[in-house]
């Protein structure tokens, strides 16, 4: 059987709405930089962003670039579109990635540029960027290339 690629061409994704906590994340993504919230006291990265450091209660939090390389922590293959606008892509892989630079911070994404059957726990991935409009670019993932 031929490896199946999900067809994303007919999918209209919901556009993320940045808020006070998340705006720097989306501003960086628009520049094709993955930046996560980091506690300046204990150096812990966290995602999604939060009002305080969930490790040390620090309140001095800044967004810092991370390499975008990591491993699939978990995934699911979607066969039923909870959101009907994703129906054209079914089946597709939605993945959760743990970045090398930010252990414990889990990022959602899709596995792009590969058959959905390639999603496996532990597989190496790297970030790529999918512009949705002039303001919002979505961090996404593909299988890691090279080392």
């Amino acid at each position, binding site marked *: 059987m031929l490896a199946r690629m999900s067809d994303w061409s007919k999918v209209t994704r919901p556009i993320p709405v940045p808020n006070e906590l998340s705006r720097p994340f989306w501003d960086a993504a628009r520049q094709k930089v993955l930046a996560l919230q980091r506690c300046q006291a204990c150096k812990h990265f966290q995602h999604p962003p939060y009002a305080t450091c969930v490790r040390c209660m620090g309140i001095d939090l800044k967004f810092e670039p991370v390499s975008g390389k990591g491993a699939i922590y978990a*995934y699911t*293959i979607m066969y039923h579109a909870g959101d009907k606008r994703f129906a054209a892509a079914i089946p597709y892989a*939605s993945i959760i990635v743990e970045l090398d630079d930010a252990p414990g911070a889990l990022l959602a994404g899709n596995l792009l540029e590969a058959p959905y059957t390639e999603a496996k726990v532990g597989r190496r991935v790297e970030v790529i960027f999918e512009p949705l409009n002039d303001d919002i670019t979505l961090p996404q993932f593909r299988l890691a290339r090279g080392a």
Partner: protein
Amino acid sequence: MWEHRCKVAVSGVGFSKVTRSAEIPLAAHALEAVKGAVADSGLAMSDIDGLATYPELPATGHAMVDGITIVSVNCMMAMLKLPNLAWHVQVETVNIGGAVQQAANALLAGVCKYAVVWRAMHNPKGTYQNLPGTHAAGATQFTAPYGFGGPGQGMAVAYTRWLERHNQSREKMATLAITQRRHTQMNPRAYFYGQPLTREDYLGSRMVAYPFCLYDCDIPVQGAVAIVLTTADRARDLKPRPAYIAGYGQRLAFEVAGRIGSLSSYMEGGRSSSSLTWERSGFSPKDVDVAQIYDGFSASVIYGLESYGFCKEGEALDFIQDGRMELDGELPLNTFGGSLGTGRIHGLWHIIEGALQASGRAGERQVKDVNVSFVGASAPIVQGTTFIFVREPY
């Protein structure tokens, strides 16, 4: 051990008709369930002086309309006009189990005598999930753009991690689905009563969100269930044999909203919600005669069995094999069919079955010689509560 163990009991229980989707206002279901529970106790409605619920609407994106899509405490007050009402509460952090625990606390504090707790669940006609639309705000901004469209998919990701880290296979879950469906055939009130399920049905079923197939997911329904709680002294004077609350616990850990897929969150939630239940009751998992563990999605049972301490991490799918979860097995499990059998009524039906088994009132599906009856009333990740009911106070 808890000084208040066995001082509060579940007395009567009540049920509404369960339909696939809304045909009559949800308030009518809630009223039917509450009236049923009060009548089962042999009480008059005017005896009821405490009210508690968790009114959340799980069908996302639909308007909260009191009496139609939710049934709040205010709605119940307006319907019942209780002449002796003395106390009420609506909980937020721990689902319906939290409402039951608050009612127990109110009874222990002496601020009411007979409390009713209900859970009413709405299933709108048409689309269950009304997803964010063109924009994704709040916690969904990091998930909805990737096609995470509901709780099932969120739970499915942690399940793949569990399966692959422990080198397990999802086919083993068929045992859970078909055993619970067999139990369902002894529960005439359940949505899937009269509809058996075979291993072949499970293995051949369509995928929803891998590793979940159709039969790993409870079916959304419209319905309500209710219980009467009272102090042990009063419960002994009522019609049904009481099911005494020997201990309870609630989830004591929370990770940031919008963080999904974390298997450790389920485990930490389950451990924290059960550790005080064991300590307060003085029992341990090996003392349990029968267990109800929340199964809105099948993997919740796996996380529950492991995090509550019934088996080691990674072993739950093996634990449920070889008849162990049958009515005459080592740990009879979800004896009323679970949510997979009754339809999605959240955890109050699990609490009801835990109480019925403890008081010997489970009829055809009664497990023999039950004293210690355990309930994990909701998914341990965010809303877990646990209970132990006993037949004999100690």
